[in-house]
């Protein structure tokens, strides 16, 4: 992904803040000042532990929340503040979301056909019932389901098939960006691989960009071109997959990587795991600024911190 800079920027997030006031004196800063860009056709993996703000980021971008501060530009239009009607329409057709639990996100009383067609119904994207049916069949085929599935209800499908319906529903609008929020976490391991393969092939075929939010690092590594690591609402490190996985600089990223269990029983048994505790680390994320390690690789920290980390690694 060296050609990053030549590619057209699809989504630009600048200094996004998403706060949730709990009481007069207490505000949860779920996302605190993060910036990143997603290029057209890119798969961007957003990782972090639970509570790090990765889902909130996705939901703010698609405007399920109203961002507290910051600017989000999508397809060249500002979608962060109050949007004119045209922009809303563009956003709702061009950006789509796949949710974590397909059983909870699909309407149990609708048939697969109607679930998938809901988007094109709302935006009146067909001229006849025949066309509507054909569009649904085509998309079902693309996600590896057959025509017969169109007349079933969600409970008649297996977990993997349900998630394929979730993907089909997003895909039928021909989006430019799909936000996959923990789209594989609720699935069985053997099914996870199938869904990940499907997402990747869709990205290759349709050229649509994917914001892949997950906590399973090995899957993220496999699917993503670029990775952002979130911790406590701050983007602590970002870069290409190789940057983050092979040359991680930030201690949080390094601890995250060292915690992945590897399937080698002889080494894994006594492999020490790096621990990282924000409270005792003496770091203050809000003091840090972004430092460029390479063209693509950025890390958050003060000058002294980054100097120290680089020295530790050398």
């Amino acid at each position, binding site marked *: 992904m060296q050609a990053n800079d030549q590619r057209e920027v699809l989504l630009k997030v600048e200094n996004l803040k998403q706060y949730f006031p709990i009481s007069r004196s207490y505000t949860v800063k779920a996302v605190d000042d993060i910036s990143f860009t997603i290029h057209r056709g890119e798969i961007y993996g957003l990782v972090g532990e639970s509570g790090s703000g990765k889902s909130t980021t996705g939901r703010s971008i698609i405007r399920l929340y109203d961002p507290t501060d910051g600017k989000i530009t999508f397809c060249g239009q500002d979608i962060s503040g109050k949007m004119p009607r045209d922009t809303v329409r563009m956003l709702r057709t061009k950006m789509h979301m796949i949710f974590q639990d397909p059983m909870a996100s699909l309407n149990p009383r609708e048939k697969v056909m109607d679930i998938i067609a809901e988007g094109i119904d709302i935006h009146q994207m067909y001229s006849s019932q025949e066309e509507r049916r054909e569009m649904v069949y085509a998309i079902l085929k693309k996600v590896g389901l057959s025509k017969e599935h169109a007349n079933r209800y969600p409970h008649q499908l297996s977990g993997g098939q349900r998630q394929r319906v979730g993907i089909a529903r997003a895909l039928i609008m021909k989006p430019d960006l799909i936000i996959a929020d923990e789209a594989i976490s609720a699935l069985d391991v*053997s099914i996870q691989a199938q869904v990940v393969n499907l997402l990747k092939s869709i990205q290759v075929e349709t050229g649509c960009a994917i914001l892949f939010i997950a906590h399973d690092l090995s899957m993220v590594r496999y699917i993503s071109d670029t990775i952002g690591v979130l911790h406590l609402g701050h983007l602590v490190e970002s870069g290409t997959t190789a940057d983050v996985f092979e040359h991680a600089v930030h201690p949080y990223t390094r601890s995250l990587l060292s915690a992945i269990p590897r399937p080698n029983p*002889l080494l894994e048994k006594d492999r020490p*795991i790096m621990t990282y505790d924000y409270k005792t680390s003496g770091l203050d994320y809000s003091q840090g600024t972004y430092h460029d390690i390479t063209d693509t690789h950025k890390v958050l920290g003060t000058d002294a911190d980054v100097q120290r980390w680089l020295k530790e690694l050398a």
Partner: protein
Amino acid sequence: MNNQETILKISDLSISFKTFAGRVNAIRGIDLELHRGETLAIVGESGSGKSVTVKSVLGIHAANEIIDSGRIDFTYQDESGKTVTRNLLEMNDKQLQKEIRGKHIALVFQDPMTSLNPTMTIGAQIMESVLRQKGVTRPEARQRALELLQLVGITDAEKRFKNYPHQLSGGMRQRVVIAIALACDPDLLICDEPTTALDVTVQAKILDLIKDIQRKKNLTVIYITHDLGVVARVADTVAVMYAGKLVEKGSAEDLFFEPAHPYTWGLLLSVPDMDENSDSLYTIPGSPPNLLKPVEGDAFAPRNQYALEVDRHREPPMFRISETHSAATWLLHPDAPRVEMPEPLRRRIDSMREEVKNAGK
């Protein structure tokens, strides 16, 4: 391992469920032996019968569950200090509750939020199980509960004692669940997907915690998991289940370096490799069989590219490969054609061996 004391022996266990559609043969003849202090991991897809197997050890049965055959022999020391062996399947619920559950065999569930009582403080919940032992007074129980909290690595236990589950993070909650499981000093701890709901960093800490306690108390642990990385980190022996049967068992080293069953090959291959870049992830084709219908031959045969003709008609027996390692596949029969494991897996195992060599072991 053979000279060690056997703590749990499952022989020829078969379980089915009565449903509207007919009888589902969830467990189809399992033999398993576990020694004291050993860690066993049971791996398999969902629906392969892992949970049903361990739940039957604790006598947790669904209303429509039928035990068709088999016995589960558990060896423990009763209150007088005498070593007894009893068939857990013959004990009724009352006896199990009085003598086995908690005291000798304890269970850690997957999701700590649903296994804790949200209306009780965590201290009270730990004390509850301590107080079930005979002749323990409340102050003693409180003291013991505090010790348990410290044992599972909760700092300022005194303060946390009064917390409710919702005030704790996921990792903390799972520590409390483990503390409750350990309250009566069990011999056998069963962990049903203990870290699936947790983040990787927390997962690593919980696994290390269980390992540490195991060493201190000579606990026997059974893990149910589908994460092969976790298996590599904790397990001494591994049992692979498919469609209600054990298809392969052996030491962790056997399973990861010398896998013999095509299903195990598939499982190992479907783990995304951290060091290799490939175009697509390997997936085992097809889906598990419907256990409503009787399985003819090897249940895995329809998904198995290496299946032989005999696989479709006759069920393979367990073939012994070595002292510790056995697998149920006709490929191991002396008359079978020689079939090598898939090339990508061979490469991966070679690179794992290389890693081990480089680490100087």
